[in-house]
């Protein structure tokens, strides 16, 4: 009696999973395929196979706006930001994990609370700060905050407490190694996998950031990728092939990162939430 029912549900499960896979993948496929078709092809039919207008679309795209400029600008912000989150995140986490000092719990509570603050809601104050610091049209307001990334601190503190024993720190200390030397040469290499995981998340978050750059960057040549993408509809009007290609280019870096690191990313998500 139980058997046919189970077979039925096994089939529905399979179908549901396949349906969701298609739903997640097809929008990207359509973008990649349509980026190789002429705008006329795109409005005439639903394309299933790649076309031969990639080069044409590329030329149209570049003639209207230099997408690689946006790509380059995003890299210029994202890479230093990510490195700062990794290095300083580890350093601050180490300070909280392995030193005893007064007000430690209060200070750590501030770190935790800052994680929950909806940062987008202080964007007007952020704008005013950048005006006062003469940092509009500068990338610094997006790079420097990497030093104070609370999520990275939270994640790495747990990791340091679990994997770095006190004796690992005390031995070099007796040998006369400086405190920063211990951090740089012993602690940091040991927690590198965790640092890398957090760096991937921070890279993605920084790459995707939109509202901040939209407000602070006023000169067109400074626009980041998401800001450019949001303006594409107005720029390309009916050049659909070029639009699809631009979307494809904006999506590819993240897809590559995910293809290489998907395991770390999902493991990072998983361990992060278990705590």
């Amino acid at each position: 009696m139980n058997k046919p029912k189970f077979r039925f549900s096994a089939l529905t499960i399979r179908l549901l999973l396949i349906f969701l896979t298609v739903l997640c993948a097809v929008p990207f496929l359509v973008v990649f395929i349509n980026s190789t078709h002429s705008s006329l092809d795109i409005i005439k039919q639903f394309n299933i196979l790649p076309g031969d207008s990639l080069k044409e679309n590329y030329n149209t795209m570049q003639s209207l706006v230099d997408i690689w400029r946006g790509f380059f600008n995003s890299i210029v912000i994202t890479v230093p930001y990510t490195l700062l989150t990794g290095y300083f995140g580890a350093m601050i986490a180490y300070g909280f994990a392995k030193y005893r000092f007064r007000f430690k719990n209060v200070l750590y509570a501030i770190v935790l609370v800052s994680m929950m603050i909806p940062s987008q809601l202080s964007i007007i104050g952020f704008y005013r700060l950048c005006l006062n610091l003469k940092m509009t049209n500068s990338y610094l307001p997006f790079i420097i905050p990497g030093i104070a990334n609370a999520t990275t601190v939270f994640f790495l503190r747990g990791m340091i407490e679990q994997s770095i024993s006190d004796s690992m720190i005390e031995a070099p200390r007796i040998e006369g190694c400086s405190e920063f030397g211990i951090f740089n040469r012993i602690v940091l290499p040991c927690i590198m996998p965790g640092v890398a995981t957090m760096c991937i998340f921070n890279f993605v978050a920084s790459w995707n950031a939109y509202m901040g750059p939209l407000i602070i960057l006023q000169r067109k040549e400074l626009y980041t990728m998401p800001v450019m993408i949001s303006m594409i509809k107005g720029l390309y009007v009916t050049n659909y092939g070029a639009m699809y290609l631009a979307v494809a280019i904006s999506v590819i870096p993240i897809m590559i990162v995910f293809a290489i690191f998907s395991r770390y990313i999902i493991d990072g998500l998983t361990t992060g939430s278990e705590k």
Partner: protein
Amino acid sequence: MQAIPETQMRRNKRSKLDRGWYGYLFIAPFFVVFLIFGLYPIISTFQLSLQKWDGLMPAIQIGFKNYARILSDQVFYLSLWNTIRIWLGNAIPQFGMALVLTAIFTFFRVRGKNFYRAVFYLPNLITATSVGLLFNLLLDGDNSPINQLLIALGVNGAPISFFMSKTLTSGLVSFVQWWMWFGYTTVIILAGTTTVDKSLYEAAMVDGASKSQTFWKITIPLIQPTLVYLAITSFIGGMQLFDVPLTLSNNLGDPGKAVLTVSMYLYNQGFKNFNYGYSATISCVLFLFIAVMSGFAYKAMRRKDGAYKL
């Protein structure tokens, strides 16, 4: 080992690790940067909410006039309702789907679990502005790929003018948000279920409990902290929704401001109309709303079984 008194051990530990001063040095960068780029903007936003400022002239103190204005601002209420509606429209199916998938992965041996997990999670990583534009390209216009598909399938009423209808546009924003987030929610809930002791399931099965009984009576209560965490973070994020409705619609939240969210409204007030003071007021009111609602939600969900800590 146990022979050493605890106090002595502690003293011993302290003497060797007593370089607390360095602790401050290591954590100082966080607080310096947080004070400047985190706390100052918050205080400044609150100050601005009591001022009138166009970005050029010096700001003028006007007391609570902005707050009086927001109380009778119909567009603000509309945007708040839009934001809540769009969030409910994606959060409910998102948690529903995530729970279904969790049940599937918990009770059935599905091959390729890691593959599915990765594929479902992928949309969450993609730039939200790109996702918004992508779905706009797929849907907008009589010749859009989706409409061509609908025509080919002989669907009644195709081609559909998706972005002429308020209901459809709002539904689509919810759908895109669902598409971006159901995988993330699933991954986190699944992670929560790995902490559930497997022997509990076996015991329940031995006692004759069905799979669905086991799921509702054992799995769900045990992963409740994860669900509370997800519900609250989803609410906080959902109330700040900006990128997707902006790029999916025509950058203005049309038709008829159907997908104008609070964040879009505060952006428009500040950076299009140059009412920075009023824009800051919208931020403060939304902040208060988020804080109060998540506080209530946390209390209400915690009171149910009071035993755990988030």
